């Protein structure tokens, strides 16, 4: 993150008032700018923006099914964003989160396929542990590339994403291919009793959002209330200075990556046992990248993660109806999400 300097000024009173005004008006301006850009895009297609906004903003809350879909998207999204707020606090851009999610999903499949007869509760636990370990391992590889081979975590992460999606493709088309014939649509479905239990007639598995909320609470506590969190934040601000103060900077960075990878891995495991009930090539579905946007907007402040994750998940779920009802592409949700984060970044720029 950019370093901000504040110079001492003579007209302290006036700048204070200006700053207060700025702190209130700037987020509003950012919001207006983001909606202005999105509205322009909508207008160019000739549909009524109001109608489109009604679906994008509130569509996810219109029926119980859509609401449950939104929660099932918000859960892995929140897990990724929570994990990323750890790496952001440590000053790392973990673009590899997508691959960590895939690695977690693949690792979670291993116990499920090896011992499908074991009691489901034990298997879910094993799948969760294995998914977390898979994601953490994938993230640690990025840490190793950064630490020992001087490859920036951004490109190491992108490389590991490509590798993970290749591995997922290989598993789906190779060792775990369908019994009838190999298909890009995924592996055979898991046995019914291994699906995470859902609420009647909905696709909502309550365990998923509960796990995500638990992760949020633990990470909030660890980042703000523990010495470890303080050290991580110090490393994020200035690794060299933190090192001189006796913080094992490289170690802390590796730990943040592993923690983020583990949470992303659990998100991948949830995609397997609670959403797709199989391994599919696109198991991460861009949730990791969306998580990066959520974490950037929340600015590593864990309190904002939940509302932003829920809002972004509802934009995505709400926009799914757009092609059918209005005949426009659902990518407008992504435009709105991206624009919100982009203008929020400007709103944080220092006053000159």
């Amino acid at each position, binding site marked *: 993150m950019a370093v901000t300097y504040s110079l001492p000024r003579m007209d302290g009173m006036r700048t204070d008032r200006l700053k207060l005004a700025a702190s209130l008006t700037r987020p509003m301006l950012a919001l207006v700018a983001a909606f202005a850009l999105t509205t322009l895009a909508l207008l160019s297609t000739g549909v009524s923006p109001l109608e489109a906004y009604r679906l994008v903003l509130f569509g996810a809350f219109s029926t119980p099914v859509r609401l449950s879909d939104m929660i099932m998207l918000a859960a892995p999204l929140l897990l990724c964003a929570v994990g990323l707020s750890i790496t952001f606090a440590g000053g790392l851009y973990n673009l590899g989160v997508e691959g960590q999610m895939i690695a977690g999903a693949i690792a979670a499949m291993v116990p499920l396929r090896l011992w499908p007869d074991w009691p489901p509760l034990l298997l879910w636990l094993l799948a969760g542990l294995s998914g977390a370990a898979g994601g953490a391992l994938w993230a640690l590889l990025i840490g190793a590339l950064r630490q020992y081979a001087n*490859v920036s975590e951004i490109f190491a992460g992108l*490389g590991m994403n*490509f590798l993970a999606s290749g591995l997922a493709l290989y598993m789906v088309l190779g060792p775990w291919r369908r019994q009838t014939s190999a298909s890009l649509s995924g592996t055979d479905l898991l046995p019914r009793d291994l699906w995470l239990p859902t609420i009647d007639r909905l696709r909502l598995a309550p365990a998923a959002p509960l796990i995500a909320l638990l992760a949020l609470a633990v990470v909030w506590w660890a980042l703000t209330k523990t010495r470890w969190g303080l050290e991580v934040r110090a490393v994020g601000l200035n690794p060299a200075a933190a090192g001189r103060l006796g913080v094992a900077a490289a170690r802390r960075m590796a730990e943040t990556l592993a923690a983020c990878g583990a949470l992303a891995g659990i998100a991948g495991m949830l995609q397997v046992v609670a959403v797709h009930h199989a391994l599919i090539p696109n198991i991460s579905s861009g949730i990791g990248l969306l998580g990066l946007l959520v974490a*950037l907007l929340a600015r590593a402040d864990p309190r904002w993660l939940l509302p932003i994750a829920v809002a972004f998940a509802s934009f995505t779920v709400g926009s799914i109806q757009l092609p059918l009802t209005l005949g426009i*592409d659902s990518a407008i949700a*992504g435009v709105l999400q991206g624009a919100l984060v982009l203008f929020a970044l*400007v709103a*944080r720029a220092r006053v000159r």
Partner: protein
Amino acid sequence: MDQLWIDLAAVLAAASPLVIAAMGETLSERAGVINLSLDGTMLLAAMTGFAVALTTGNLLLGFAAAALVGAAVATVLGLFSLTLGQSQTAVGFVLALLCTDLSSFLGAPFVRVPGPAVPFTPIPVLADLPVLGTLFFRHDPVIYASFLIIPATAYLLYGTRLGLIVRALGERPAAVYARGVDVTRWRYALLIAGGALVGIAGAAFSLDLKQGWSYRHTFGAGWIVLAIVIFGGWRPWRVALGCYLFAALEIVATRSQSALPNFPTQIIQVAPFVLMIFVLALVNLASSPAAMRRAATLPQIWQRPLLGAINRLRATAPAALGQPFERP
């Protein structure tokens, strides 16, 4: 034997958008600005270029529109990072996702619509040369441009006074500032020029190499270019070589799909990027101080070629890459 030359010519052609985008990114990174929005910029420019060329029926207008889109996205990146002091990485990443979704949304009416394409234009006389003709002179103008832009970028960076300024902007901005150069203004100029090239590269996909428009049309090419620029050590000829190696690997991967019917060869397509990252890691490992110390214990005869090879392969980033510049 003839088939080999034809295959090599196909590699040169397939790499053309990568080369153009990579030269643009090299320019802006040498000036100290990372344009991480590359993938989104290329998609948005590819879509715009195709849409404009289709509706106006004028290919040049399509390329101009694509260049304009690339320059505009770069301007936004500059405004937010160079002027407003936000992280180049954060702004670039958000722009990448935003432009990707904008291209999907705005480009929906143009998906799989047949449209204009750059015509095949062999160069008269030269095309009939034995090997050289096949390799270099039986292409279209975009591919010729991709050949010319490599020496042009190299000459600009290493042969002109402007290039000296550009390299200094990336290495020691404070020093150029002391010589009376407006660092921010020059960084803007290089970023925008590089962005325009990236935009043209996008149109090189939609109007030439992979004609038409579809969802995520360029298939992650922008991320690949970003990695190639690092792989190439920010030096134009090496970056270009990286693009050609990448294109060659891709073609081999596609060919092997029919040769290995039982092996799920879709996997091979992710190999080039992964390979590149690991080669980069190996080179960096080999040039680390620890490895150098070990090399120093080797017999003298081995040392010189080994160290020479490592020095040739190592890639050092511009020292001020991605750093904000504060006026002293």
